[in-house]
């Protein structure tokens, strides 16, 4: 008594968000049925397994047919095959492009290539995200990357327009694209404590301040790449550590400002030269692609770790960096105020974000 065929098609798309999520998460039909049955919400309906199975199958098929359209969400609005109310369209798209932070953390900064795709089963095993879901997420990253790579104009806006995503999600994708494009190293053990949201925030800072688009919207280039001129100019900051006078002057200014305001003052004073050297060195090396990739690891190694070992609090950190940045303005021989601000502004907010356990 086998059911040979069983379909149910509505004039308006019929979907439950719960089943959609199960589908997105990569559950097989049978597993999804199990989850739904265990969910218990169906008890009141006295739904037998076969009813739930049939419903799940129908929805899975619908989603599969929609998937092609979801690959270019703008099509979803003017396709004729399915009648989908606008709010449902938004849900379908938003959920389809949503991703697991644990998963994205693994591929962040990696090349979105076939090679990486082959590693997905390892990632799946490591993160507990189902392989199918990993593939979808990975393909989403790749698709978005491919589309916006060649586009002019603001990255976030481009993503939002082409994929009809919410602002938040578009920003996250911008971060992912930015990381993938610049291949920032995020996988080192020392960086493991950083969450995707930490890194996405940093990426946002970099996009908004260090790319060409950040200074001039009219420029043909877009904000996937860092502003080369700016990176060149960063070399000039070297005087802050190479010029002994300047370094001492800077130190004394900062120390004067900090004295008595923090318990960690002694450590700060002792470490000032080291820390300053660390930050300025990062800046001056950014012209090398290789060093760009190590940007985050450098930040952690050269600045965050020393501070942490000295038990700075977040407030200490804030205080220190604020004064460190501002004091440079008072140095009369230091001529690169604009570049300094542009650099330190990002560094400051990145470190604030990254300075946690």
């Amino acid at each position, binding site marked *: 008594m086998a059911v040979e065929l069983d379909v149910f098609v509505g004039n308006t798309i019929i979907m439950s968000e719960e089943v959609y999520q199960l589908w997105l998460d990569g559950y097989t039909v049978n597993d999804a049925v199990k989850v739904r049955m265990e969910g218990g919400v169906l008890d009141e309906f006295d739904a037998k397994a076969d009813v*739930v199975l049939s*419903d799940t199958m129908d929805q899975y*098929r619908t989603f599969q047919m929609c998937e092609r359209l979801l690959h270019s969400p703008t099509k979803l*609005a003017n396709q004729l*095959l399915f*009648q989908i109310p606008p709010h449902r369209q938004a849900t379908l798209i938003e959920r389809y492009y949503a991703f697991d932070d644990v998963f994205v953390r693994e591929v962040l900064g990696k090349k979105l290539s076939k090679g990486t795709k082959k590693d997905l089963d390892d990632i799946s095993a490591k993160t507990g995200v189902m392989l199918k879901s990993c593939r979808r997420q990975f393909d989403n990253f790749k698709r978005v990357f491919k589309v916006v790579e060649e586009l002019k104009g603001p990255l976030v806006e481009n993503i939002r327009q082409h994929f009809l995503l919410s602002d938040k999600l578009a920003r996250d994708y911008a971060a992912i694209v930015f990381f993938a494009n610049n291949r920032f190293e995020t996988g080192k053990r020392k960086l493991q404590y950083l969450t995707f949201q930490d890194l996405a925030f940093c990426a946002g800072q970099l996009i908004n301040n260090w790319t060409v688009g950040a200074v001039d919207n009219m420029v043909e280039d877009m904000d996937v790449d860092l502003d080369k001129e700016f990176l060149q100019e960063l070399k000039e900051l070297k005087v802050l550590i190479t010029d002994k006078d300047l370094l001492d002057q800077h130190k004394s200014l900062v120390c004067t400002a900090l004295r008595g305001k923090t318990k960690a003052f002694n450590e700060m004073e002792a470490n000032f030269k080291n820390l300053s050297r660390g930050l300025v060195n990062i800046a001056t090396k950014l012209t090398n692609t290789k060093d760009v990739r190590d940007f985050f690891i450098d930040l952690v190694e050269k600045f965050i770790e020393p501070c942490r070992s000295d038990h700075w609090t977040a407030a200490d950190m804030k205080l220190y960096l604020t004064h460190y940045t501002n004091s440079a303005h008072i140095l009369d021989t230091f001529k690169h105020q604009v570049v300094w601000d542009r650099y330190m502004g990002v560094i400051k907010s990145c470190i604030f974000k990254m300075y946690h356990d």
Partner: protein
Amino acid sequence: MPGKLKAKIVAGRHLPVMDRASDLTDAFVEVKFGNTTFKTDVYPKSLNPQWNSEWFKFEVDDEDLQDEPLQITVLDHDTYSANDAIGKVYIDIDPLLYSEAASVISGWFPIYDTIHGIRGEINVLVKVELFNDLNRFRQSSCGVKFFCTTSIPKGYRAAIVHGFVEELVVNEDPEYQWIDRIRTPRASNEARQRLIFLMSGELQRKIGLKVLEMGGNAVVGYLQCFDLEGESGLVVRAIGTACTLEKLSSGSGTHTHPNTAPASNACNSPSKDGKEPVFGEDLPSSSGPSTPFRALPTSSSSPPPFSPSKPCSRQSSSSDTDLSLTPKTGMGSGSMGKDAGPLKTLLRQQTQTALEQREFPFFTLTSFPSGFLLHVGGVVSARSVKLLDRIHNPDEPETRDAWWEEIRQEIKSHAKALGCHAVVGYSESTSICEEVCILSASGTAAILNPRYMREGCLDLGGSDQRFEDPSPSSCGFCHIPYDELNMPFPAQLTYCFHCRRQKVPDVLFTTIDLPSDAAIAGKGCFIQARLCRLKKKGQGEANATAISNQLPFMEYELHTQLMNKLKLRSMNALFGLSIQISVGENMLLGLASATGVYLTALPAPGGIQIAGKTPGDLNTEQHILNIQKRINDTIAKNKEFYEVNPPDLTEEVVGSPIPEPRLRSRLFRSHSESSDELSELDLSHGKKDAFVLEVDDTDAVEDIQSLLTDASPPKGFYSCNTETMPGIYNWTSALQMFTSVRVLRLSNANLSNQALNKVFTDLCENLLKSFYFKLRSMIPCCLSHLVFSVAVPEEDLIQVAVTAVAMTFDKDQTQDKPAEKPITKGCSEAEDQLQFSLELCTDSSSINSQSSSKNSGVPESSHLSTRAASVDYGSFADRCSTWLELLRLKAHTIRRGSVKTSRRTQSLAHSVSSLEHSSPLTDGRSRSLRSSRSFGGSSVSVVKMTPLSFLPGTRIVKYVGIINMFFIRETTSLREEGGVSGFLHSFVAEVFAMVRAHVAALGGNAVVSYSMKDCVLMENPNKNQCQCLINVSGDAVIYIRETDQEVTGSTANIRLSCTSSADGAT
């Protein structure tokens, strides 16, 4: 040269990649009508080509305009090899041929390929200019409107109902021609699709001609079917009801007040029997000679039971009727007032003659204007088993005609046997397996009000309507039309529990919808009887005989099941009854669906009693007691669920055999079935009491078990197969139309009838359960118009296809329904008469603005939008002009197309000014209408679909054309498409999409009376192949929301008054 068809290919989008190398397509379009073909330029290397072609003009006969579809083929240009077809669009231009429907077809159509499905979309503009008005109706029947709706369409009034029209066209099936062996599946599918398009066009034209001959202007309840007879050919047949429809033009004048609905029981007076010589001729139960004898005494002896007040009231009201009525029909008016009897005999005779002049007094309508239906006799049905042979001469489809003729005659005689002169809710169907074909027809015998039948009765003023005894219309239709002493079948008659004047049967079965003014208790309920019978495989004559021998037994069993289930729900009437019998190679399937109701005019149903065959056996008795208890519990539970709380019937009606509380009622034989050779079947169980179920063997036990296993729907759900759910009136606007198909493979070859029944019953029950589950978010909700269709596509396969609509309703208000009902009905009728026809879709306007802004980055969209908008502006004006026409004098005979340009500008000016008068909301809406239609990158406007003739919470302002589409889909990569389920799922979705696109292109925003006539699935999983044919139909309409209409109400009223004055001037 009566017509010029113009088509313009605007653009394409989402085309498939045809050139792997470039990932692009070099698309061009062929536009074909008849034998003329035009081509667009090749638009190279684009998936979103902008052809923006010139207007292709076809100068054609209007006959061709009706028969032929416009055929648009999108191809990929290939320099070195043959051009590859991307897909096709067939556009039925019939809606452009009558003035009140659409004036332009414009929009995005899915490009459809029978192998690949939908492959992108194409934007097309089509117009028709008809000229040479004098010859307009010569060979063609342009101008006759077709409606699938089985009631008088909203916004219209039936001036005359002319009656039954039928036609059939036959041809060879291209799939079975020799050439099919050498051509590709695609070519063969396309030949078939095109042929069927042609055939249904021709059929419609021929029916239209018949209608014109009768003097009508429309076909309502148009039902078109395909019989795929395989080797022996392809039959397209249609039936419908010819009417003269008038657009309702004034607010209150013509519209009938539901409460003063015309009297319905006048014909019910005993004197009616005086003239019943034909009565019962075909029926063994009433022998011919005795009839006149019995009839005579009846007329004199019957009156006593009536209360004295009744004749008085009838007299007074009928007096002015006589004055107004009789002169028209040329009847003597001598009998006026004095004795109601003769007058009614007269009236009846008029009707009778009016109807008898027609070959078949059949009506495909299922619901009627109030007062139309006087009495209902019961269901009449006829079936016949035929052996198919090759249709030798397609031009002379005599055999098929003769077959149907035979069946219709039988139906007619059955109706006569029930004392009725007409059959309403009439439908025909077939089931074909190899060379065997079962033809079935069924309907409801009824007596109709004569005044709708005659010409010259158009002016139904208020006075005219009260020409008969204003007896409650809530029960009139239940009163028996046949002679009480000469009943065509044994039935228990009682006096009507409502008016206490006339006799009513104990149970009433009908194929029509519940009359809107019928008095009921509680809610309705979907009732289904299912039956599966094994049959030996056979060939030819023997096989046909075997089948036809089985049929009566099947009908009998289905009937018994229905009756038991009805009792179990303590209801006493069935509406919308449809019995389908499908034949397969090794089994017969019977499925009877209906909506049960408790009619307060009919006696309360008795319970069901279980009796053991061998009394004394303690075990059995205990068992029987248990079952009896369960049955009683179920009845009580159902009573509560369906809120069946009939008014107390303590007051005894004098002279009527009031049933005892636990009456073992007798099966009312409303059927007069017959199988092949008019073999009569008495369903009355002889003298045996029908509702004592005897538990004598295991079969019976299982029967009872199955009776009890029918699960009632979960809380918050109701279901019915009629247009409206009896007992629910406060619909809210949410609705979800759906189609579901399930095919079951019987794994065990040696199943008993009993086990097979169980399988089949479970299949249907599980389907229902799964609907309830899927649609649970809509609670409180009702599944309306549940139409099941069963088939046996192959040996051991059972296919069930269901189309229905789920509609939400407001739970809180359900209590005050009966009082509310006439009022709402009255309102809706009044609203129906508004002529304000602007499409609106507040949602879509917002979507538009939203998505157009989204797309602003794409360069071509802005370019397209301006152009498309301007094009559409014209169409908008055109549409405005159609309602503006109503403002003008009707005598103004500016025909469409003749002075088109000037008229358009003129009417545009008018429309603009009228829009300015109306609220800003209207203005915005009209803008959205303009932009929503062919906006390049914009979103798709929402098209609602429903199998019902109405959309809750809305008002249909215009019918823009009939939708009648036929699609074939085939695949040779079944597994890759997700198996049969995946294949069919996408096909059904594609069919919906194509229907919606056509409706939107006609300017409509909904399809009403949608139905899926056929869903034929042939699979061959071993070869990884599958083919499916789907035929759908419906009426494309423009609706507006009730709430919106309030805003525009004032303007609409002003316009209405203009219209009525214009009418007056004509």
